[in-house]
C-alpha cells in the first residue's frame, strides 16, 4: 500500500460524518475494509514474495515499485471486471461461474465464485447492487461436498464451508460437468495449505506498511519500563538459544538471587521446563505476577528443594509481604487428576508461606465444546424464545465469568494485599496466559493503550508459547483435532467485557479487538503463526512475513476509542453474570437482524470532529491576529479590548 492509501484511510477514519463508524462497529474488518483497501491498492501484485525489505519498513524502492502499474503474474489472465480485488502477493487460483450462494438471511444469489491463495470471493450477478462475500481461507476449518450427481432439488449439489468465525457458507453448483470439482480442489489446497505441502499465505503476502509491527515488543525495554533489573530481579539470557525451555522466550526476568544451576534444577521439576518467571511487577509495592507450569509432583508427592527455594526467592523479592499466593487456574479435581500423569500442584506443607488457590477454570476441551454450542445458538438463526436460557446452557459466559473473576482475584492480591502471585495451570500456556494477561490489563494502564495491548499479546501470549498453531490449526485440515480450542478468543472476550464495563479506560475500540480476532485466523500476517518464539525464529517469520501490528498501527485512528481518558489506577470489574453479556458484535455479526451495539460512538466522533475544527479555527484566528500585530496593523478598532501581553 502506498502512502496515499494510508493517508486516505487515516482521513477516512477521521471523517466521522461518513458512515464509517457504522460499518466499523459491525466490524467485519475482513469484509468491509478489505474491499476498500484492495480496491485502492489496485492490481499491484509483486512477482514473488522474495521482495523482502527488512521488517517491511518501506524503502524508496518499494515506494517506486508500488506506484508502477500492475505487474501481471505470468500465467495469470489480465484482470477482468468480475475478478476479486487482490492483495499484494495474492493470486486467483480458480473460478466457478453460475454458482449460487445460499445466504441464510437473504436467500439464494447467483454469481461468480473465485478462490485465491488467500480468500474465497463470491460476487452476485443477479442483483441490482452486487453482493459480495469474502472469507479468508484461513478462517475455514472444513470444506465439504454437498449432494452428488444424482441429488435432486434446487441447490442440493454444491459445497459447504464451516468456518472458525461462527459462520458456515453454502454454495450450490450446476450438476453438469463436475462444475464444482476445480474450486473444491482449490479450496482444499489453499484453505489447508500445510496439508498440501504449500506455504501459508502470510509467506506470499508482500504488502508494505509505514509502521513495522515486528518491533512492538522489545523485551529488555519492556522490563526496563517496569523497573527491571533492580535489586531483587535480574534479566537472564540463559534461554537465549531456547535450550532450557523451548516454549519460553529467549529473555527472562528471574529473582536476582537465583543461580543458573537453580534455574536448571527448577526446570527439571516443572512441566516442559516452564519455570516461574516474572510477568509483571508493581511499580510501588514490588509485588509481582509470575507464571509457570505445574510442578512434577506426581502420585508420590515428589518434592524439589531447589523449586521450593526458588519460590521462596520470589516471595522474598517482595519485602511488603511474607506470603505468596499460588493461583492454580484449574478446578482442584483436575489438578489432582494431573498427579496421575506426573503433574500436580504445590502442597502447602512443602511450600512454606504459600497459599494455594484453585480458580476453577476448565480445560481446552470444555471450552471448545462451549463455543460449539454457542455457534449452534447464534448461527444462522436465533431461536428467540430460548435465547437467554440457550446462552446459559452453552456455559460460555460462565467460563468468561470465572476467567475474569480469577484475573480479578490475582489483581486484587497484588494491588490490595501487596502480595506476589504465582500463576499456573497444567502447562502454563493456556489458562495461565489468560489470567496473567488479564490481571496485567487490570493493573497496568499501559496495556490498555493500543500499543500497550500489542505488547501484552506479544509478551504473555506469543513469547510465552501459547500454541497458536495447534489451538487454531492454521492451514491444516484436521478440523476435529483435540488440540484446537478458543483460548485466545476467550481472552479477547474478557477484554471486551472490560471495555463494556469501563467504557473510557481503553484506548482501543471494538473494531480493534475484532480485527485482531479476524487475523488470528486469516493467515495473512505472520503474527499468530507457529507455537513458540523458537519456531518463529527458526522460520524467520519476522523477515518473511508482515506483522499484524504493521497493518493496525498504520491506520491506528480506525481503532481508537473516542472516549478514552488515560488515567492511572486499577480496574475493579465485578465477575457477575449480571454484568457480563454476550459479545453480539462478534458472535452474531453475520446476522443482519442484529444491530451493532454502539451507535453512541458515531455521535461522539461527530462532536470530536467539531471540536477539532473549532480548535483549528481558533488557532487560525490567533495566527492571523499575530500576523496583523506583527505587521503593525492593529485589529479593527474595538475600544473595549486593550491588548495585553
Amino acid at each position, binding site marked *: 500500500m502506498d502512502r496515499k492509501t494510508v493517508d486516505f484511510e487515516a482521513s477516512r477514519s477521521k471523517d466521522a460524518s461518513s458512515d464509517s463508524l457504522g460499518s466499523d462497529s459491525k466490524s467485519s474488518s475482513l469484509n468491509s475494509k478489505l474491499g476498500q483497501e484492495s480496491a485502492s491498492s489496485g492490481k499491484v501484485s509483486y512477482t514473488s514474495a522474495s521482495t523482502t525489505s527488512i521488517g517491511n519498513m518501506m524503502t524508496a524502492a518499494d515506494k517506486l515499485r508500488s506506484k508502477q502499474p500492475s505487474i501481471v503474474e505470468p500465467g495469470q489472465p489480465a484482470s477482468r471486471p468480475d475478478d476479486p480485488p487482490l492483495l499484494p502477493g495474492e493470486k486467483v487460483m480458480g473460478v466457478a461461474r453460475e454458482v449460487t450462494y445460499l445466504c441464510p438471511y437473504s436467500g439464494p444469489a447467483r454469481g461468480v465464485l473465485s478462490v485465491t491463495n488467500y480468500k474465497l470471493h463470491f460476487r452476485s450477478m443477479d442483483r441490482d447492487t452486487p453482493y459480495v462475500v469474502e472469507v479468508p481461507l484461513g478462517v475455514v476449518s472444513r470444506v465439504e461436498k454437498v449432494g452428488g450427481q444424482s441429488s435432486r432439488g434446487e441447490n442440493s449439489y454444491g459445497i459447504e464451508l464451516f468456518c472458525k468465525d461462527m459462520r458456515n457458507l453454502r454454495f450450490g453448483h450446476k450438476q453438469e460437468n463436475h462444475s464444482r470439482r476445480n474450486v473444491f480442489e482449490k479450496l482444499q489446497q489453499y484453505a489447508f495449505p500445510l496439508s498440501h505441502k504449500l506455504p501459508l499465505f502470510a509467506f506470499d503476502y508482500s504488502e508494505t506498511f509505514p509502521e513495522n509491527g515486528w518491533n512492538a515488543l522489545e523485551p529488555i525495554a519492556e522490563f526496563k519500563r517496569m523497573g527491571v533489573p533492580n535489586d531483587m530481579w535480574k534479566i537472564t539470557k540463559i534461554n537465549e538459544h531456547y535450550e532450557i525451555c523451548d516454549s519460553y522466550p529467549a529473555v527472562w526476568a528471574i529473582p536476582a538471587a537465583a543461580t543458573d544451576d537453580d534455574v536448571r534444577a527448577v526446570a527439571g521439576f516443572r512441566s516442559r521446563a516452564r519455570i516461574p518467571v516474572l510477568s509483571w511487577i508493581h511499580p510501588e509495592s514490588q509485588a509481582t505476577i509470575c507464571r509457570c507450569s505445574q510442578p512434577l509432583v506426581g502420585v508420590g508427592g515428589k518434592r524439589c528443594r531447589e523449586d521450593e527455594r526458588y519460590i521462596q526467592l520470589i516471595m522474598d523479592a517482595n519485602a511488603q509481604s511474607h506470603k505468596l499466593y499460588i493461583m492454580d487456574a484449574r478446578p482442584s479435581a483436575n489438578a489432582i487428576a494431573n498427579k496421575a500423569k506426573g503433574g500436580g500442584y504445590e502442597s502447602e506443607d512443602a511450600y512454606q508461606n504459600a497459599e494455594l488457590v484453585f480458580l476453577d477454570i476448565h480445560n481446552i476441551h470444555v471450552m471448545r465444546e462451549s463455543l460449539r454450542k454457542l455457534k449452534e445458538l447464534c448461527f444462522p438463526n436465533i431461536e428467540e424464545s430460548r435465547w437467554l436460557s440457550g446462552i446459559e446452557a452453552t456455559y460460555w459466559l460462565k467460563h468468561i465469568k470465572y476467567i475474569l473473576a480469577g484475573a480479578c482475584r490475582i489483581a486484587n492480591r497484588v494491588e490490595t494485599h501487596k502480595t506476589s502471585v504465582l500463576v499456573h495451570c497444567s502447562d502454563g500456556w493456556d489458562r495461565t496466559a489468560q489470567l496473567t494477561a488479564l490481571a496485567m490489563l487490570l493493573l497496568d494502564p499501559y496495556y490498555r493503550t493500543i500499543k500497550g495491548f500489542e505488547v501484552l499479546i506479544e509478551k504473555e501470549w506469543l513469547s510465552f508459547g501459547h500454541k497458536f498453531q495447534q489451538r487454531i490449526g492454521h492451514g491444516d485440515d484436521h478440523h476435529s483435532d483435540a488440540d484446537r480450542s478458543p483460548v485466545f478468543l476467550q481472552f479477547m472476550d474478557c477484554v471486551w467485557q472490560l471495555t463494556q*464495563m469501563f467504557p473510557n479506560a481503553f484506548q482501543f475500540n471494538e473494531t480493534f479487538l475484532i480485527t485482531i480476532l479476524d487475523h488470528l485466523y486469516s493467515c495473512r500476517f505472520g503474527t499468530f503463526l507457529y507455537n513458540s518464539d523458537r519456531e518463529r525464529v527458526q522460520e524467520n517469520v519476522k523477515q518473511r512475513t508482515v506483522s499484524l501490528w504493521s497493518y493496525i498501527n498504520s491506520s491506528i485512528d480506525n481503532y481508537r476509542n473516542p472516549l478514552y481518558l488515560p488515567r492511572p489506577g486499577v480496574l475493579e*470489574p465485578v465477575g*457477575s453474570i449480571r454484568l457480563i453479556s454476550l459479545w453480539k458484535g462478534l458472535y452474531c455479526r453475520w446476522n443482519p437482524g442484529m444491530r451493532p451495539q454502539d*451507535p453512541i460512538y458515531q455521535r461522539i466522533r461527530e462532536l470530536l470532529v467539531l471540536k477539532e475544527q473549532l480548535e483549528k479555527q*481558533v488557532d487560525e484566528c490567533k495566527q492571523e491576529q499575530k500576523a496583523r500585530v506583527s505587521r503593525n496593523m492593529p485589529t479593527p478598532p474595538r475600544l473595549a479590548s486593550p491588548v495585553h501581553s
Partner: protein
Amino acid sequence: MFKTHDKRVSMSFRSYVGFNDQENKDVDIGLEENFDETLNTRLLAGEAVVAEAQNVLMFAPLSEKKGKSGILTVTNFKLSFVTTEERPRDERGLQENLLLGEYDVCLANVDEIYQMIDKDKRRKMMPGNNISGKVKGLYIVCKNMRVIQFSFKFSPVGHGKTLTNALLHHAFPRKHHLLFAYDFRERYYNSQGPVTMFNEKKDWEKEIRRTGAVGWKLSDVNQGFQLSTSLPQCLVVPDALVDYQLTEAARHFRCNRPPTWCWSSSHGAALVRMADLLPTITDSRMLVIQPSVIRHSGLSNIIPETRTPENIMLENVRKGHPQRTQPELMELTQDLPSPKDVYGSYCKLRDLCTPDNVRQFWIQDNHFLSQVESSKWLTTVSACLTKAAKAATFLQDNITVVLQEADGRDMSCLISSLTQLLVDAHFRTILGFQTLLQKEWIAMGHPFCSRLGHILNPEVQQSPILLLFLDCVWQLLRQFPSAFEFTETYLTTLWDCAHITVFDTFLFDCEHERQNASQDQSKKITLRSLWDWGEQFLEKDIALFRSPLYHPSKSEAVLNVLCSLPNLALWSQCFFRWIPILELKAGGYPQIDLGVRALHAQIDYLREQLAEAKAGERTSNHRLCAKLSKQRVTSFFPFSATIDPVISPALLNSTLALNNSFVSNEALLDSQSLLNAPD
C-alpha cells in the same frame, strides 16, 4: 465512618469470585458511637409523626456489615431514617430529592414488609395486621426494588412493635384521601412550564393543529363525564359522527369507551384507541361478529345488516381517512399479557433484583439468564415493542390503526404512546414526552392509583404497566441514543416519582376522580404536577435528565426499532442500582454520559474563544493546569449509595445549554479536571 473516604480506601477492592470468600461473616451489629438523642426527622408542612423508634440500626443489604444508627419514624408521608452518619448533601454527588432524605422512603413506595426472625430468616407481614410480640427487625422491599433493613436490637422495649404496627397501617391506606397529597400544606406556585395537560378543549385543539389531522373533530359529548368517567371531557372523534351516534355506540363498549383519536400522520392516517365490546349485548346480530373475524375477513365484506356498533364506529373512522382507506384493527388483549401477567413478571424480576444476602446473590448468578427468561419480563418488553413497531409501519403506510383492548386503559396507553414515540420526534423531547404521558395515560384514564397500588384494595390488580412502558422507552434510548432529549436517569427518576404521593400526576385512576377530588371541599387537595421538577430536584439533578447525545436533526423521523429479544437488554440502571456488589468504580454508562458532557463544555469554550478572537480580543489566560479535583463516578451514578463522587455543578448546568452556549472558563476547568482526574 462514611465521610472519611480516603483515597486509598477506595483504591482497595475486593473481587467477587464466589460467595465463599465473604459469605456469612456474621452480620455483626457494632455500636460505633452513642446514639444521638438530638436527631430530628425533617417534616414537611402538613406532615406528622405517627410513630418513632430510637436507636435503630439501618443496613443497606449486601453491602455493609455494620449498620448505621439513628431514629426510624413513620409519618403520614414516609418511612424516615435519620442518622448522625449522614453525609453532607453536597458531598454525596447522588440525586437528592428535596422531599425525601437519603434514607427516606415514601409510604406509597413500600411494597412488602417482612419481620426479621433470624439472621437470614424473615416472615412476611400482612398489611393492616397487628403485631403483638417483639419485633427484632424489619426488612422492607420497595416498589422501585430498593431494599432496606432495620434492626431494633438496641431500641427501647416496644419501639419496634409500635413502629411496625404504624407502618403496617399507614403504608397501605384504604382510602384515597389518606394519601399525603391531601395533607401536604406547602404553598404551591405552579411553574411546570408548557406541558400540555389535555384536560381542556384547547389542548386537544392544539394537538389536532400540530399533527395536521383532518377528518377528526372535537366533541363535547363527554362534558361532565356523562358518557364515560374514564375518558377526558373533550373527545376527538370522526368528523362524520354526530354526538347521538357516539352516545348510542358508547354504551356497547366496556367502560363506555368508543373509538377516540390519539394522533394523525401528515398524510392523514390516524392512531385510534377503543375498548372491547361488552359481552353482555343481547342483540344476536351483534354477537355474530367477533373482532378477530372482522380482522380476518376485512371490514368491507361485512354485510350492513350484521353491523355491530363497533363496525359502525370503524366505518366512521374509515371515513375520517383522506383516502377512505380501511383502518387496521389491532387487538391488544389477546396478543399482549394482561395487567395481572405483567405484575407476575415484575414480581419474578423483583425477586431477582432483591437478593436477600450475598450468598443468594451468587446462587442466583448461576442461573440468572434463565431466570430472567422465565420471568418473561423481556419477552413482554419485546412483545410491546413489536406491537408498536407494527402500528408504526401501518401509519407509515398511511393506514389508520385502531388499538383495541379490554377496557382500553392499560396496554392501549402503552402501545399508543410507544407508537407515537416511534413516528413523531416531537415526543422524544422532555416536554414532548411529558405531554405524551398526559395525553395517552393521564387524560385517557390509565388507572394509576390501582396499578401503582396506592390504595390497599384486594379488588384491583396492582401492575407496573408504567414501568413496562419506561423499560420499552429505555430500549429505544439504547438503540437510538441521539434521538432522545432525555436520559435513562430521567426515566428511572420518573419511576421513582410514581411512588411519591405529593404529586397528582400519577395519583388518580382518571381525570374524573382528579376533578372530584380537587372540588371536594371536605378534604382539600392541592394539585401539584410532577412535571414541576423544581419542586423535587435541584438544577444539578435536573441537568442530568437532558441527554448530551441528543441531536434531533440527525435522528431518523421514524425509528426502525429492533424488537427481538436478542436485541434487548435488562435495564441495569433501574433494576440493579440497589445491589451494591454490582457497582463499578469508574465504570458503566455514566462515564460515557459525563465524557460527552465534558466534550460539550470544551466545544462551548472553543466557540467562546473563537468569538473573542474574531472580535479581536485577546483571549484571557486560561489556567488549564488548575487544581485537579478527584472526580470519579461509579456505574450507579447518580444513584450511587456507596461511594462519594463529586461532580462539579458547573459542568452539569452549563454544558447542555447548546444554543446559548457560552460557558465560563470555570466550567471548562471543571471539565478538564474531570478529564485529567487521577484516581
